[in-house]
């Protein structure tokens, strides 16, 4: 007397194939593209727009593009599309800025080392993580030595930094130093010690109330009025400090949001376990709070990375600045699309990478919180 009830997912019953419109590609199309009148119209309009946009863009960027030419006129004589020859002529300074040509291997090496240093920080299942971590911690010093020279290497001034390399230096430094500083500020703002609390609050509110561009401008020009005459204070260093402080204030608020999401019971539980303040923060509160804050933190980092182009205002030529001053070369004048598109690709890769990593991290950490 056993009755077996077996259920099949529609379309998998061995006896009968579903009707033609209910399987395979037709089903998919109906479900996803033509599920209602409104959606059908949207689909058709969308396809029409793609047809209008994609082929001309493809023609411009690939089919009619020119890779080899000596100047704009040659380029435009050879093809009606993009003049990638210009980018080919300039990609080195777009990447390295004014860094001396024979020393550019040092930039390459420090970039490769950066990738290596990031592995144990980003992936906790990396092999030999502990010793590797030591390398990551010492990386800023190694990179500083490689980029600036000294102690056996030819010194290079920070005014020779430029291009993609400058964006990366400012972005990576800002990200690396603003996260710990931001966490401290967030804890400080929640602190019960009145001085710590008010200092953190004033700092955060002041920095958030002022645009980054103003801070950079202050760093580049106003600081000279305040410092004793004759002091020279490296411009890039001033920028790094300002960018770090700026993004730390934002990170602090993001982390504070995370801290507030932790129920009071967690704090009390930590206290009742006899944990001291820093122990309870490190072991109980912050791991939970930071996990909640990941999207916001990464959002701030992406914003920070894109904001590195603002250094153009104070006379540092980042990738955008180099692109602009290259465009003014009479030999190539007027090829702005090519330059802007190349720069956009660089930023897209960097920012998309960060955003994918944050999604990976969220997925990994969200044990037991799935709703």
């Amino acid at each position, binding site marked *: 007397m056993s009755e077996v009830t077996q259920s099949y997912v529609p379309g998998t019953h061995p006896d009968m194939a579903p009707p033609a419109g209910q399987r395979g590609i037709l089903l998919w199309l109906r479900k996803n593209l033509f599920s209602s009148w409104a959606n059908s119209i949207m689909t058709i309009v969308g396809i029409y727009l793609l047809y209008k946009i994609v082929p001309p863009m493809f023609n411009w960027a690939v089919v009619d593009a020119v890779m080899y030419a000596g100047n704009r006129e040659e380029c435009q004589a050879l093809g009606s599309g993009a003049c990638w020859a210009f980018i080919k002529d300039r990609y080195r300074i777009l990447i390295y800025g004014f860094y001396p040509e024979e020393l550019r291997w040092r930039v390459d090496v420090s970039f490769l080392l950066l990738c290596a240093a990031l592995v144990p920080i980003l992936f906790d299942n990396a092999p030999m993580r502990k010793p590797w971590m030591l390398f990551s911690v010492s990386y800023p010093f190694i990179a500083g*030595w490689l980029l600036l020279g000294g102690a056996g290497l030819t010194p290079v001034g920070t005014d020779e930094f430029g291009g993609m390399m400058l964006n990366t230096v400012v972005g990576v430094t800002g990200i690396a130093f603003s996260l710990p500083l931001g966490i401290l500020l967030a804890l400080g703002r929640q602190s019960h010690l009145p001085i710590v609390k008010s200092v953190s609050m004033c700092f955060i509110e002041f920095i958030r109330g002022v645009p980054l561009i103003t801070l950079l401008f202050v760093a580049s020009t106003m600081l000279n009025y305040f410092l004793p005459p004759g002091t020279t204070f490296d411009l890039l260093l001033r920028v790094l400090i300002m960018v770090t402080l700026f993004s730390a204030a934002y990170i602090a608020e993001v982390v504070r949001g995370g801290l507030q999401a932790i129920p009071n019971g967690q704090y009390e539980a930590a206290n009742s376990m006899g944990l001291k303040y820093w122990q309870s923060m490190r072991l109980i509160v912050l791991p939970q709070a930071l996990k909640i804050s990941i999207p916001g933190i990464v959002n701030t980092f992406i914003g920070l990375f894109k904001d590195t182009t603002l250094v153009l205002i104070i006379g540092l030529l980042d990738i955008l600045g180099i692109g602009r001053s290259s465009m003014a070369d*009479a030999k190539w004048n007027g090829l702005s699309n090519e330059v802007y598109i190349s720069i956009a690709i660089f930023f897209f890769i960097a920012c998309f990478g960060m955003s994918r990593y944050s999604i990976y991290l969220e997925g990994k950490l969200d044990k037991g919180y799935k709703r």
Partner: protein
Amino acid sequence: MKKLQIISAAAAVMALGVTAASAGTLQDVQARGELRCIVSTGLAGFAYTDSAGVYQGFDADFCRATAAAVLGDASKVKFVPATGKTRFTILNSGEGDVLWRNTTWTFVRDVDVKLTFVGVNYYDGQGFMAPKSLGVKSAKDLDGATVCIQTGTTTELNLADFFRSNKISYEPVPIETNDESRTNYLAGRCDVYTTDASGLAATRSTFPNPKDHVILPEIISKEPLGPVVRHGDDQWGDVIRWVLNATRGAEELGVTQANVAEMAKGTNNPEINRMLGTEGDLGAMLGLQKDWGQKVIGAVGNYSEIFERHIGKDTDIGLDRGLNALWTDGGIQYSPPFR
């Protein structure tokens, strides 16, 4: 890297602490061994980076000439790129020593912004360009037009004056850089493109169809473009003024990059001898080496050579000398005597 820098900078701050107040700019530059020269972030013919990342152009060459005079080496220049809005702040804060950045000499800038204009290296004037299809014959027909205009420049103010005095209206489209205005104009977001006439010609030459655009006959302003230094440093101002005069004087006297070494051995013309330092000691009066004039011409050539190399007839910019010819050739470029 960052920590090292912070430590070393902190040490530097403490060590320098209260040093003597800065002397003159000339002494500062000589002590530093590097001239910080403010140039445009990118203007065809005047300042741009070449494929090796080196600044080139008419203004960039005057920076080199200054470095050659002050430091004896034309390569000891650090170019500080500045936008129209930031240039004076950068100069006044001491982040730059001199401004060679196609900057118009005006009353307010000279007097109220506390700058000193020490000469004019290019006489320009503001013009208009419009598509032929618009059918405009004169700038006075531009009633109701949208105009692309760079903010923070004198062109912006001239435009307002011109339209107001002719009692016609316009709609400004504010733009940050020359390249953006070019893009916006070509995309049809503004009917009219206005900037200095040198810039108009240079920009039109880069259009896909230059013949479809007309430069209107009106020149609505005087734009004397020249070098600027901080107010109150007359010695440094003198240096810049006479570097500029040396290039013009050399053209007038027939001294060129090619023959300067020959002429520096001594000529029959005492003015050439004084300029190149073989007679008298004009250099010492400026606080420079005796052979400063020779260094300037040896590094960049005379005015005509600089002009023809970057913006003259044979370049892509293709400008006539016009007002910028020497006074002996019908222009107004004129150097006081080296005496």
